[in-house]
């Protein structure tokens, strides 16, 4: 630590803390506003940061419970928020697990096994992923529309269709896991080979148990990406009961029907679980992020 003039240091510290607190206040302003709005009466009312007549109406509605106003009017929840949250989590967990399986095996092969055209396959996987995904949705829609005529299980408005479509978002994860496998001691591989293990056994009993930390990072990254994915989900899920949160949340803010208060409560309620997952995992995520995953 560099020793500085105590007086100058004091002012520097003061400036740093003031700046940080002011910056945080600015950053948190939207959150505080939304929290305040969620307790305000009505969907259009404006007011101070501290609501004058706080009401739990929006919170009841977000939780899916009809709310009875003091004048006896019963308000029904406008949208099934809890169902949307459940859909998001369900699709996110299943698809992330699938992504993990596909990308781990592939990463192992790309890192440790030898086969022809390995470099070309790896590079093409990365380049093809650069096509703007939002713009292939017409083709995806056509594909699943056709599949749906055979079995509704794979059709439009089916969660399985979305899960299968999401399974293709693996390239960056393959790179992340491959980097981890690359850094492992090649002697492990040799030892297993000498003991007569097949490549699958080497993978299953040697490398898989040792790569749990990076797998956790990839799982959380994939989960966060999938839960917040909008364009593909918006095209494949049309029915209100089938929507994920990212698709459904938009329904609150149409120009003709602007449910600002209801949206605020629903946003906080549904944002909390995802935020918590992220905050708990963030220490480990930093390493995973710098390995190659990209989010804004």
């Amino acid at each position, binding site marked *: *630590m560099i020793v500085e003039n105590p007086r100058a240091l004091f002012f520097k510290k003061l400036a740093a803390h003031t700046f940080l607190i002011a910056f945080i206040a600015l950053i948190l302003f939207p959150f505080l506003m939304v929290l305040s709005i969620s307790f305000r009466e009505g969907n259009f009312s404006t007011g101070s940061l501290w609501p004058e007549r706080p009401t739990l109406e929006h919170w009841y509605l977000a939780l899916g419970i009809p709310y009875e106003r003091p004048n006896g009017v019963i308000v029904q929840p406008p949208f099934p928020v809890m169902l949307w949250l459940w859909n998001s989590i369900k699709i996110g967990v299943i698809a992330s697990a699938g992504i993990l399986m596909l990308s781990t095996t592939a990463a192992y092969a790309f890192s440790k096994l030898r086969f022809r055209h390995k470099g070309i396959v790896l590079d093409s996987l990365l380049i093809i992923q*650069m*096509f*703007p995904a*939002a713009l292939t949705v017409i083709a995806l829609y056509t594909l699943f529309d056709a599949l749906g005529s055979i079995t509704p299980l794979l059709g439009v408005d089916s969660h399985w269709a979305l899960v299968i479509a999401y399974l293709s978002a693996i390239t960056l994860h393959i790179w992340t896991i491959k980097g981890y496998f690359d850094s492992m001691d090649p002697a492990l591989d040799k*030892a297993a080979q000498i003991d007569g293990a097949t490549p699958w056994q080497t993978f299953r009993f040697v490398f898989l148990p040792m790569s749990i930390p990076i797998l956790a990072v990839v799982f959380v990254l994939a989960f966060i990406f999938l839960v917040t994915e909008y364009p593909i989900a918006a095209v494949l899920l049309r029915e209100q009961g089938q929507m994920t949160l990212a698709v459904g949340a938009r329904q609150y803010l149409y120009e003709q029907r602007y449910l600002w208060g209801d949206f605020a409560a629903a946003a906080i309620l549904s*944002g909390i679980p995802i935020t918590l997952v992220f905050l708990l995992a963030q220490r480990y995520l930093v390493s995973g992020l710098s390995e190659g995953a990209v989010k804004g």
Partner: protein
Amino acid sequence: MATMALQRDIPPAGSPLELRTIVGTLIKWALLAVYGLALLYIAWGLYAAGEALFAAVVLALMVGTTIVFGLRRFYTIRFIFPAVMAVLIFIALPVGFTSYVGFTNFGARNLLTQDRVIAYHMQRTIVDASTERPFVLSRDVEGYRLFLPEGEGGFISEPFALDGSPVEIGMTPVSQAPETVLEMRDVVQLRGPLGAVTAVLPDGTDLTLSGLRSFATVRPVYEEQPDGSLLNIADGTVLTPDQSVGFYRNEEGQAIAPGWRVHVGWANFQRVLFSDNVRQPMLQIFVWTVVFAFLSMVLTFSVGILLASLLQWPHLRFKGFYRIMLVLPYAVPAFISILVFRGLFNQNFGEINLILQTLFGIKPQWFTDPNLARAMTLIVNTWLGYPYMMLLGMGYLQAIPQDHYKAAALEGSGPLRNFFAITLPQLLPPFVPLLIANFAFNFNNVVLILLLTRGLPNIPGTEIPAGATDILGSFTYRMSFNDAGQNFGMAGAISTLIFIVVAIIAYANFVAMRRYAAAKGRGQ
């Protein structure tokens, strides 16, 4: 440790294993067979539904899986096969399809295949007025009877069931009308099933329901000619197919809707690159896309690195608290925060304008003024993106040796000079690939634009709806899913062009990363 685990977990080769291996092989083949049959069923269904391309893909998937998992030769390939297949089917195939659509005129005006368009025209029917005659319906124990009066008597049918299934009934001449006939209102209720009835007169004329009270000969308007044109039987005019635009033309040369999909070669690409009506807004959007992506990168990087440097300062307390608070915008799902901003920036009752009005008496038009809308997009994107840069920056800052700062302090260098002379030069090299990746990401940050502004406000007087905040991706997305005039062909062409641009950026990034890795390798 791992080698010990290996000895414990892998059973030694020996005779008791043989049975297990055989059972395992049997199970494997059984699973493969079930999987193969399921895919075969899907492929068959797709083919029957007229989706030959998709059917071929599914069939190829089935054959590929069987070969790779059936033959020992392809043992290594098994590891990457599922992943590669997922990417091929759900990314490469849609990408190929989208690019292919770029060479067609697929869109709202040319939605169908030519067969479907012909079927549509052939469905149009015309009533032959000369054969029109009223009818009555009678009912007895055997069923319904149709009676077509003519003079004193008329024609009466055999009894038939009126259950909606198509029937053809023979009519026989009789000299008098049936005694009991159904009331008009009962007949009206039976209108639906009656529509499926074809009455055949003794002379062979077919009559079907042509109105509430009448049966008549109904014929298709058009007759397909051997040369592919459609002859209008009623007025003798001819519709000629024009394969260059995918429409039938009448004799005056007007195109008759609906159109069908045809290949248009490079026409969409030419329009994008050379037609003034399209190029003008496209150029503006392209410039804004680059500016948006670049400024987003610079702003998030600057804010992120500033905060990271502050948090690395050894004299600072409460670092953990600050860090959690500063990371929050990244932790909250982006679709929620973007929508929150959409509400807060609302011009009339959004909180931001309320505060600005109370403090300064201004009420900026965030959503209708093009420049303010762009500024808002950048503000929101900086808010969303700086924590990522901050997290990465904190990692890289730790790699800079403290000695450098100590030496600088001895020379009397201030914090600003330190930052630009020591921190930034050592920070930038590892950051370059990440910055390029960030640029490429924002270049296609469709979600932000779609959720925040939908590209609005619109640029006035453009042929295709284009907005001031539209980036190329959102512009194309809106073109595909706009309510007025979807144009998949044009969208496909633009997507392909964007892909080429982004792929080049990505490839450059690739090379930069490898160079950096190689340089680091040499340095050590």
